[in-house]
C-alpha cells in the first residue's frame, strides 16, 4: 500500500525524495513500536499458561515452599504418569469422550439435515421458522436448563448420559446456520440433475451434498466435541461422582492419592493434558475454526 501511494505521489509530481526518506524511517520506527507492543502483550497473555506448565513439573513440596521457588530443581515428568496411574485420568476422559462422541454424532446428523432443509427445500413457513431458529440463540442457557432439569428428573435420566443424546438430536442453531450457509452456495444444477435421475431429497442430501461438505462437517464436529469436552456446568449439574467426567474432576478441588492427600501438581499436569487436544485441534484447523466462529458469531 505504501509503495502504491508513492507511485501515486510520483505520478502526480508531488514526490519529494527527502520526504520519502523520512517516511521510510518513520515506517521503520512504527514497525518496531508495533512489534514491541505486540510482543509485550503476547507475553502477558502467555505467562499464565507458561506458569501452568512450569508448575505442573514441580513436586508438591516445591509448589508450596516459602520463599517461593519459581522453577523446579528436577522436572517432575512423573506427575504426568501419575495423572494416568494415580488420578485415573483415562477413566474420566473416557466418559467425556463417550459423551462427546454421542453428542457429536447426533448433533451433526440433526444439524446437517436441518441446515440442508433451510438452504435447499422450499416450503411454506420456511423463513418464519428460520427466524425462530436464529432467535433461539438469544435465550440464555440458564433459563432453559432449570426446566430441562425438571424434565430429566421426571424422566429419571438424571445421572445418565441420555441428556447429551437428546441435546445432540435437538441440534443447535449456530451449527444449523453454518450448514445452511454452506449448502446455500451449492449450484442449483446439482439438485436438478439429481431430481431428473429420480433421486429423493434425502438421497440428494446424503449422496451429493453431504460428501461435498467435509470441511463444514469437520468444523461442526470439532465445535460439538469441544463443547462437551470443555463444558463443566451441565455435567456437574446432571452427573454424580460415580459418573464424573474430566471437566467435573478439574472443576472441583485437586486430585487426591488413595490416602486422601492432595496432589496439586499432578492435578496441574492433568489440566495440561486436558487442554493439549484442544490446542492441537486448533493448530490443525485454525483457518476453518476461525471461519466457523466468524460465520456463526458463536463459539
Amino acid at each position, binding site marked *: 500500500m505504501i509503495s502504491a501511494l508513492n507511485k501515486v505521489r510520483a505520478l502526480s509530481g508531488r514526490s519529494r525524495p527527502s520526504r520519502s526518506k523520512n517516511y521510510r524511517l518513520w515506517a521503520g520506527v512504527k514497525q518496531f513500536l508495533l512489534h514491541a*507492543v505486540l510482543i509485550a502483550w503476547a507475553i502477558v497473555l502467555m505467562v499464565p499458561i507458561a506458569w501452568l506448565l512450569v508448575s505442573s513439573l514441580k513436586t508438591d513440596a516445591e509448589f508450596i515452599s516459602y520463599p517461593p521457588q519459581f522453577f523446579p530443581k528436577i522436572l517432575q515428568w512423573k506427575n504426568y504418569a501419575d495423572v494416568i496411574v494415580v488420578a485415573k485420568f483415562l477413566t474420566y476422559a473416557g466418559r467425556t469422550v463417550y459423551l462427546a462422541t454421542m453428542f457429536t454424532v447426533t448433533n451433526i446428523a440433526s444439524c446437517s439435515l436441518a441446515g440442508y432443509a433451510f438452504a435447499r427445500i422450499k416450503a411454506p413457513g420456511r423463513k418464519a421458522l428460520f427466524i425462530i431458529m436464529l432467535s433461539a440463540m438469544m435465550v440464555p442457557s440458564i433459563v432453559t436448563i432449570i426446566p430441562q432439569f425438571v424434565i430429566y428428573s421426571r424422566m429419571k435420566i438424571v445421572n445418565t448420559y441420555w441428556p447429551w443424546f437428546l441435546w445432540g438430536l435437538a441440534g443447535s442453531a449456530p451449527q444449523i446456520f453454518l450448514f445452511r450457509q454452506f449448502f446455500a452456495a451449492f449450484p442449483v444444477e446439482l439438485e436438478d440433475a439429481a431430481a431428473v435421475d429420480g433421486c429423493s431429497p434425502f438421497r440428494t442430501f446424503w449422496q451429493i451434498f453431504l460428501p461435498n461438505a467435509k470441511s463444514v462437517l469437520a468444523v461442526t464436529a470439532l465445535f460439538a466435541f469441544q463443547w462437551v469436552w470443555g463444558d463443566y456446568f451441565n455435567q456437574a449439574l446432571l452427573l454424580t461422582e460415580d459418573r464424573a467426567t474430566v471437566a467435573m474432576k478439574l472443576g472441583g478441588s485437586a486430585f487426591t492419592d488413595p490416602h486422601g492427600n492432595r496432589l496439586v501438581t499432578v492435578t496441574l499436569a492433568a489440566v495440561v493434558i486436558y487442554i493439549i487436544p484442544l490446542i492441537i485441534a486448533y493448530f490443525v484447523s485454525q483457518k476453518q475454526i476461525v471461519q466457523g466462529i466468524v460465520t456463526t458469531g458463536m463459539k
Partner: protein
Amino acid sequence: MSVIRDMRVALRERGSKERVPWRKAKWFYLFITPWMIGFLVFTLGPVLSGILMSFTNFDGMNFDAMRFVGFHNYVEAVKDEQAWWGFKRVMYVTVVGMPLGMVIPFIAAVLLTRQIRGQGVFRTLFYIPSILPITAVVWVWKLMMDNNYGLVNAALDAIKPGTYVRWLTEYSTLVLIMMGLWGATGQATVYYMAGLQSVPKELEDAALIDGANAWQKFRFVTLPLVTPVIFYQLVMSVLNIGQILVQPLLLAGSIGGAGQGSGLGAIPPRDNYFFMVHVFNRVFTYFRFGYGFALLWLLFAFALILTLIVFGTARYWVFYEVEQE
C-alpha cells in the same frame, strides 16, 4: 455479523409466499423435525413453563404440592436484599469489565490486521487463551493469584518481602474481571479482525490520496465501516448481562484447600456473590424453583430493556451499507 444480516433479510422477505407442492415441501418438515422437537422441548417449552413456574411455589419435584401464588415471588424478589447485592455486583462487573472487554479486543484487532512480520504467530498467541475450557482457565488463574502459592504474590514478595495480597478473597471480583478479559479477548478479536478486513482497501486508499492522515482515515473511513461488528458485540454483551455463574463458583476456594471448595455447591466470597449465583443457590440448594424463575425473569426483563435501548441508539452510530436486493 452474518447472523444478524441474514435475520434482517429473512424478516424483509417473510411476506413473499412460496408456492410449493406438498410432495416436495414435506421433505422440509421431515428434515427439520429433530430440531423442531428439540426446540419445542428444550427451548420454547422451558421458557413458557418458566414463566408459569414463576407464579407458583414449585419446588422442582412435587407437582401435587404446587400452588399458584400470584405475584408473591416477584414481590419477594424485589425485597430480596441478597438479590440486590448480587445485582449490584453484576453492575459493577458490567461497568468495569464490559468497556474493557470491547476496547481491548478492538485494539488487538487493529494491531493484528496491520502488515507486520510474524502476524500469524501473534494471531495464534492472542487466540490461545480462548481455546481453554473454563475449568482450565480457573486453574490457570488460581495459580497466578492464589493468596499463598500464586505467582503474583510470589513476585511481589520477591520485590518487596512480606507483601501479601488476598487476591482470591479480598479482590475476587478484580481477579474475575481479569480472568474474563484474558479468556475472552481472543474470541472478540477474531470478530473485530473479520470486520476490519472486510473494509474495502480502495476506500482507505482513496482517503489517503485525498489527503487524510492515518488517524483521519481510521476515524472517518475504517471505524464507521466496523460499527456493525461493534454493535453486534455490544448487543450480545448487553443481552447476556448478569449471566456470570460458573466462573465465581469455580473460583471459590483456594488451591491450598482453605475455605469451602469450588464447584456448583460453592459459596464464593461475598464480592463474587453475583445475581446468578443467588438464583442458582435458591433453585438448587433451597429448591425454590418458582422463586428462582421470578428472579431470572426480572433480570432478563432488565437485560431486554437495555438491549432495546442499545438498538434504539443504533441509527445514530451504526453504519449499514445499503444492502443489495
